[in-house]
């Protein structure tokens, strides 16, 4: 036997790899790995500056590589990492993937700027030593120590790389590993807040436990789908669905479980329960990163899976997803009404938005795809800027996220209040903001696909949700500021840049969205 085993003289053929196509991902992962090395070899005082420089270079470099590839990308997209004799590769580089990569890199850049900021709080929003027991004397001391856990930078890059892989993964196994690569750093980052350590750690543990729970669902679904189709490749699952006579209970159970995993990451109700707690507890820059980039990744992945793999079975999953979209919109809109904490309110808003995104994602037309992609882009920028502004309003205990402390903010700082109003209007979907264009595009695509009832419900939900955004606006403009209210900190260059980027994108995408919409509709998924 062993002789037979060893006698295999056959050479394995390395899969065909189009390095130019996946260069952006490789650059991000490469920068992350170098970041880990810097962490190991540099003295403490040099780490922050070199990590910032490295991370920014990495993201910008990846953006340049992406732009260079797009300039002469093959029509219709390609798949790479294709084994010899296989029909599809592990990574699909097509228009949606490129669009989502661009989105993720831009949002990642803005998030990174916020993460790296040290002007709002001496030493940044992150704790300098996460290992200390919370509530202890040392933790209180180190709240005043400048310096932060600079591992946050490579962790961010790893998460970003995982997200980029996730939206391009062409088989469920790669997708699962990418899911873990994007999740694991986020679990950790959620627990690194400098202030309110217990809340932050609680958020991290909750996110981790529930995330693991959801990953288990996803993995079980992958196993069932493998049992059905004999492959984890999206295209082969679709082929099996279309032409198999085998009992399809495995297929539907598998679809259900895989979708549960994806919905969890997108914080779609009823899989949303972690969202408010984690958004509230995590350090605000991380919350912004999670809210923007994770949502893009989750829905990017969902779009691909639903379109490429499950499209032949769309008759069956339309009704459940319809219900889930309604539940999510209702939960977001109704729960949001009574929130008193701003970060929690935005969390519920993100749940409502996730419902709108499901409406787009289940519309498997060209319009549905392009409008959902645009919605992700628009929503991401707005959300990052929202959390950027939230991080500016502070009192002695750090950020003042209680709604009451935002009363009369316009009197203290008209500029900040104005920017925040604009962003909230964008979330509400008022015209001349990107939010309006996104909603309009998604809803009209869904209606054209025959989902009239869902669009009506979505419109009603967005009407209800608009109410709590405007409540904040009125609070800021028409209330007398509290006597010992929080102060608006003047942000440093990094946070200013992030907020400006997000706000400008919200405005530009609301007034001249044509370029982004054209790009989003330039092509579909590679089969």
């Amino acid at each position, binding site marked *: *036997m062993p002789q*037979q*085993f060893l006698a*295999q003289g*056959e050479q*394995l*053929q*390395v*899969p065909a790899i189009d390095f130019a196509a996946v260069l952006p991902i490789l650059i991000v*992962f490469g920068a*992350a*790995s170098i970041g880990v090395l810097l*962490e190991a070899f540099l003295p403490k005082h040099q780490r922050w500056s070199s990590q910032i420089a490295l991370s920014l270079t990495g993201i910008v470099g990846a953006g340049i590589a992406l732009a260079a590839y797009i300039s002469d990308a093959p029509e219709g997209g390609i798949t790479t*990492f294709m*084994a010899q004799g*296989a029909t599809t590769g*592990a*990574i699909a580089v097509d228009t949606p993937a490129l669009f989502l990569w661009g989105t993720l890199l831009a949002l990642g850049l803005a998030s990174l700027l916020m993460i790296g900021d040290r002007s709002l709080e001496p030493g940044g929003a992150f704790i300098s*030593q*996460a*290992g*200390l027991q919370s*509530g202890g*004397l040392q933790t*209180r001391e180190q709240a005043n120590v400048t310096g932060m856990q600079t*591992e946050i930078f*490579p*962790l961010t890059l*790893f998460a970003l*790389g*995982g997200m980029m*892989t996730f939206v391009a993964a062409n*088989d469920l*196994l*790669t997708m699962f*590993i*990418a899911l873990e*690569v994007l999740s*694991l*750093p986020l*679990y*950790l980052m959620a*627990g*690194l807040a400098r202030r*309110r*350590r*217990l*809340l932050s750690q*609680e958020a991290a543990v909750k996110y981790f436990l529930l995330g693991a729970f959801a990953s288990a669902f996803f993995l*079980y679904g992958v196993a069932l789908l493998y*049992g*059905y189709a004999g492959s984890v490749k999206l295209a082969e699952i679709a082929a099996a669905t279309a032409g198999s006579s*085998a*009992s*399809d*209970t*495995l297929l539907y*159970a598998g679809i259900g479980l895989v979708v549960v995993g994806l919905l969890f990451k997108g914080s779609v109700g009823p899989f949303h329960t972690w969202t408010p*707690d984690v958004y509230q507890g995590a350090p605000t820059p991380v919350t912004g990163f999670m809210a923007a980039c994770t949502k893009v990744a989750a829905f990017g992945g969902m779009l691909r899976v639903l379109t490429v793999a499950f499209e032949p079975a769309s008759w069956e999953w339309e009704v459940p997803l319809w219900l889930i979209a309604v539940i999510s919109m209702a939960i977001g809109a109704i729960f949001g009404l009574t929130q008193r904490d701003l970060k929690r309110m935005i969390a519920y808003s993100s749940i409502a938005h996730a419902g709108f995104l499901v409406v787009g994602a289940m519309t498997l037309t060209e319009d549905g795809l392009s409008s959902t992609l645009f919605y992700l882009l628009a929503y991401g920028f707005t959300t990052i800027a929202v959390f950027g502004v939230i991080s500016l309003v502070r009192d002695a*205990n750090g950020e003042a996220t209680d709604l009451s402390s935002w009363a009369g903010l316009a009197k203290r700082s008209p500029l900040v209040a104005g920017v925040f109003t604009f962003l909230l209007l964008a979330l509400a979907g008022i015209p001349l903001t990107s939010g309006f264009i996104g909603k309009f595009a998604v809803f009209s695509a869904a209606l054209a696909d025959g989902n009239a009832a869902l669009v009506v419900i979505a419109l009603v939900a967005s009407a209800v949700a608009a109410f709590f955004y405007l409540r904040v606006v009125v609070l800021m403009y028409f209330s007398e500021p509290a006597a010992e209210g929080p102060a608006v900190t003047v942000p440093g260059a990094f946070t200013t840049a992030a907020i400006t980027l997000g706000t400008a994108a919200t405005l530009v995408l609301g007034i001249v969205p044509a370029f982004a919409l054209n790009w989003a509709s330039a092509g579909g998924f590679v089969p």
Partner: protein
Amino acid sequence: MTSFSQAAVVLAQQGGEDVVGTGEAIAFWVLGPLALAGGLGMIFVRNAVHSALWLVVSMLSFGVLYIVQSAPFLGFTQIIVYTGAVMMLFLFVLMMAGRDSADSMVEVLRGQRLLAALFGIGFATLLVGALARSLVNVQAQVPPDPYDPARGGGAGGLGRLVFTDFLFAFELTAALLIVAALAGIVLAYRDRREGPKRSQRDLVEARFRGEYKRRSPQPGPGVFATGNSVATPALLPDGSIAPESLSELIESTNTARLIAEQDRVLGSQAEHDDSRALLAGEDEQGSEQEGERK
């Protein structure tokens, strides 16, 4: 449950045919219940160490089942890596953390257990039902030859897949491992360095240079003299209390709060604390403020 028995019937039927040999069927009916018992035991046992051991039982059974299913590589990996390495590490951690630090098992949420059981069983029924249905018209396939990579089995076949179809996923696990290692370091590492460490000699010299208040060590508390509490003061030779042996921390803490603290540590009020876990932020702020007051 009906679906489950259905599945068993299907399996048993196939056991009767030539696809499944008698030995395999025996192995299944021995190991299957064991694995199930292991899983249930892991959930219902209170002691964490016992729970881990039940999991080991379950995993071992799986390992053997894999081997019986002509997947020796997977079976041995399961036993060596999971049962041998991962579970043992787990046990070490449990031992180090102290096996008595069990969570409070009191359920404070109304209906939580009932609903969890209901939906858990319901969900299991759904999935088992789905599996059972799909087994009805299954085409028996020739199992891959574990010793012939060309026919897709064993370590060789796995290796082939890892380096061809799933090359990217395989490389990606590197990122996962780095993140995991980094996470461990971030969460566990404490920087205790406060300058170079002083030797005993340095300390003595420093004492006599006057860097410390007194030249001799602090007097210890009167532990074991009259009681076993650190709060018991030491007595000087003339029988008076040595003021330096009084713990400032304990003296300045009011009694009620100390008792409350003790209660909390002992867990006698665990329910109250638990049910307001979300409000921990306020709690913490409160204690921070108190700290500042001191």
